[in-house]
């Protein structure tokens, strides 16, 4: 029954085929990348590496599947057929150890540079953080330092689920969490970083196109994890951003007398308490 080999061959072809199809269907493929022409262009870097690895693994995949299918096709049992008697081949072993070894070690070292640029703390922009983003079941609390440029003062601007930045500016963000783990995921910028309570983690990126992009929480954080959605708004110019900032501050002062403490404590989703099965007894040791 050598025809079984076709099953493997066809499957491999369909696997490759579905990737090829996906690349041509914008509803399937990688999201439009908005970190390409910006100075940092991390997004472009990641896409480039993805394609490189896709090509290498794709080639390895096709070759191994061809070999497998060929062996199945060529050597089915049939009356009178006797299998070769061989316990192995040292030369072959060496060849197929060395070649993948070279490829793999190359891949590792080749990518270290990009990784360092994107994540090493030593590479972060020297500017002061633009905002603090704090994860909290199930919202993103965004805090701008306000006019005095300092966090923790009364003129801070608090926004929920909305992060505003300016195009082509490398922004630095302090990522925090108040309760459990969350993850700051901007698929269109190819950026992801977990938010860990008790830690402040710097995150930096930039965007080349003004617009509104979705901010995903990518780390399981409880029953409402799926709906912890935020928005990243990218302004064309600094002036536009300042305008937004002023109006947001004005709005905040209107709803809240100046000097009041952060709205953090009230920011929780009303449903949190509604669905929480626990009684409100405080458990402390």
């Amino acid at each position, binding site marked *: 029954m050598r025809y079984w080999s076709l099953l493997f061959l066809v499957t491999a072809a369909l696997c490759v085929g579905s990737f090829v199809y996906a690349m041509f269907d914008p509803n399937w493929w990688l999201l439009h990348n908005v970190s390409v022409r910006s100075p940092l262009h991390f997004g472009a870097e990641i896409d480039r*590496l993805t394609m490189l690895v896709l090509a290498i693994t794709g080639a390895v995949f096709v070759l191994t599947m061809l070999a497998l299918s060929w062996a199945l096709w060529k050597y089915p049992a049939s009356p009178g057929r006797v299998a070769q008697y061989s*316990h192995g081949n040292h030369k072959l072993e060496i060849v197929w150890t060395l070649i993948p070894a070279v490829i793999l070690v190359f891949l590792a070292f080749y990518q270290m540079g990009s990784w360092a640029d994107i994540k090493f703390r030593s590479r972060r922009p020297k500017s002061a953080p633009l905002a603090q983003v704090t994860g909290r079941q199930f919202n993103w609390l965004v805090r701008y330092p306000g006019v005095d440029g300092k966090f923790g003062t009364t003129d801070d601007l608090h926004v929920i689920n909305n992060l505003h930045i300016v195009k082509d500016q490398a922004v630095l963000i302090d990522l925090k969490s108040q*309760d459990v783990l969350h993850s700051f995921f901007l698929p269109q910028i*190819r950026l992801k970083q977990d938010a860990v309570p008790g830690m402040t983690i710097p995150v930096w990126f930039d965007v080349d196109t003004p617009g509104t992009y979705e901010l995903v929480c990518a780390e399981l954080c409880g*029953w409402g994890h799926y709906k912890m959605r935020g928005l990243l708004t990218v302004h064309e110019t600094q002036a536009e951003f300042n305008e937004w900032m002023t109006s947001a501050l004005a709005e905040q002062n209107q709803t809240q007398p100046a000097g009041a403490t952060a709205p953090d404590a009230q920011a929780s989703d009303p449903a949190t308490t509604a669905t929480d099965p626990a009684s409100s007894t405080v458990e402390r040791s």
Partner: protein
Amino acid sequence: MSKKKSPASNSGPESIDLVATSHAPADPVSPGAAPTHQDHAHDHHEHPGPTNFLTRYVFATDHKVIGIQFLVSGLIFFIVGGLLALAVRWQLAWPWTRIPVLSSMMESQWQTKGQMPPEFYNKLFTMHASVMIFFVVIPILTGAFGNYLIPLMIGARDMAFPKLNMLSYWFMWPAFIVMLVSFTVPGGAAEAGWTAYPPLSVFRHSTPGSLNGQTLWLMGVLFAGVSSIMGSINYITTVLTLRAPGMKMFRMPMTVWSMFITALLQAFALPVLTSAIIMQLLDRTIGTNFFIPVGASVANEPGPVGGGQPLLFQHLFWFYSHPAVYIMILPAMGMVSDILSTFSRKPLFGYKPMVFAMAAIALLGFLVWGHHMFQSGMNPLLGATFMLSTMVIALPSAIKTFNWIGTLWGGSIQFTAAMLFATGFVAMFVIGGLSGIFMAATPIDIHIHDTYFIVGHLHYVLFGGSSFAIFAGLYYWFPKIFGRMLDERLGKIHFLLTFISFNCTFFLMHIIGLRGHPRRVANPYIYQFLDNPGVHFMNEFMTVSALLMGAAQLILIYNVLASLVAGKRAPDNPWRANTLEWATSSPPPHHNFATIPTVYHAAYEYSVPGEAEDFIPQTQPLANLAPSPALATSSHA
């Protein structure tokens, strides 16, 4: 020590007829060659295997019965875990719609017109993964096949410690019970994912499942872990001390090697998980602060004193759970190696490189845990080193893959159901392994971490890998275990449908994951970039395929049940294989062998030129053999 051992007899003649089948050895074995020291048949000790139902089948100390117990409970939990997965899939394709059966069952509790509440979704995938990993794949691979095959394949009468073996199975039961019960406690089952990251899992009010379910989950994993530790100590000891005469380490079949290395892996990795689990349990129960950072709190409660480190748990967890994924693949690799060799009628290509590759995977497996934590906030410098070690660990896997293909090459391939699943394993493992390369690359992992790309990867290695090997092993050893043949035709249909629906279910996950579809979300369509026809189509297609895959398993269930009742009687060595388990009757007698066999050569002498048969059991000296170092033995017939 030895005094405490099973009081059960050595091989009295009565003990053989456990099931009345032909037990004349198919192959002429010359028992005369066996050394004499092992046959102290003292009459006052001879009695057949236990006759009492309870001691024979329930509290059995016979490794074969224990293996079957693990197998049966594992397969039952496979259905449970699979049904949970189907509910997951349903929700992803058609969020918040009524689910057949489940919705009606839960109607009174959900009070939402049959829509599942979001936390229930989290319970579903948490318990799905926990059941599959801790109750299905690990128990079946090591518990069932390991238990059943190790003594048979090395020519021993039983495990070194039969009572410990029994205990190891019965320690699974508290785990089973606790996990199942957790669905019914206030707050329901755990919902922190199978990774149970704190502080979500530690704060009791962070999410309903953390109220009580998480405690039960931790206890379940603890029990399962203790069971595995007992098993692994037993396996290592057995392999080291109870091999039949002539069974040198480098004559052992790959299955035994893989179980041996896996057991070592378990013995060294599991205790670390145990300590992590216990710390989390203490955090939850007596108020310690290991994983609670300063200042964190949920639900507007004042938090505890804190001071601990959530990331520490991740380190400890993955220090175990990365080796654990190899615990789930190494035995599969060993079994597949044996099956491929048998049905290619060809010696395993590169036996020693295969063994060393396995050992390398086990060793390196301890150095790569951080690749699950690239985005966790761990020092990125560590990320770079973990990327390197992770790339390196792909190397032994590459060696194995190529050696498998080398085994097929030039063979005389028999396409049995077992062989098809074994070949399927190779193909699927390649896909799963190659997707691992994307994630090992730290910059790429930034984008795909915690997306469906990961889910795709893990199902290719765990379902296409481990589970395919389980199926292969089932088709291959079923005749030995139960003395009946499985229906080959149904087996091939089962393979065909499973293979196709499996790929349809999981391959698109890579694509949808690259798009950014996060994992563990109850309703992806909250996000606009996912609420489009392409993603909807993919999710629905995957769900339909998953349903088909579930249905395909009904064929297996039917096949197993029907064959148990009315299958063809299995001869002792239906596949004409070399290893020792085929040198005894099907099923084997109470103490496995009438006389302990003597082993003359390694396990893979197929199609030896100049021999009459294309296989030469390990119990049979080679007649005309061109001396080869691996085979050298002084006792030619």
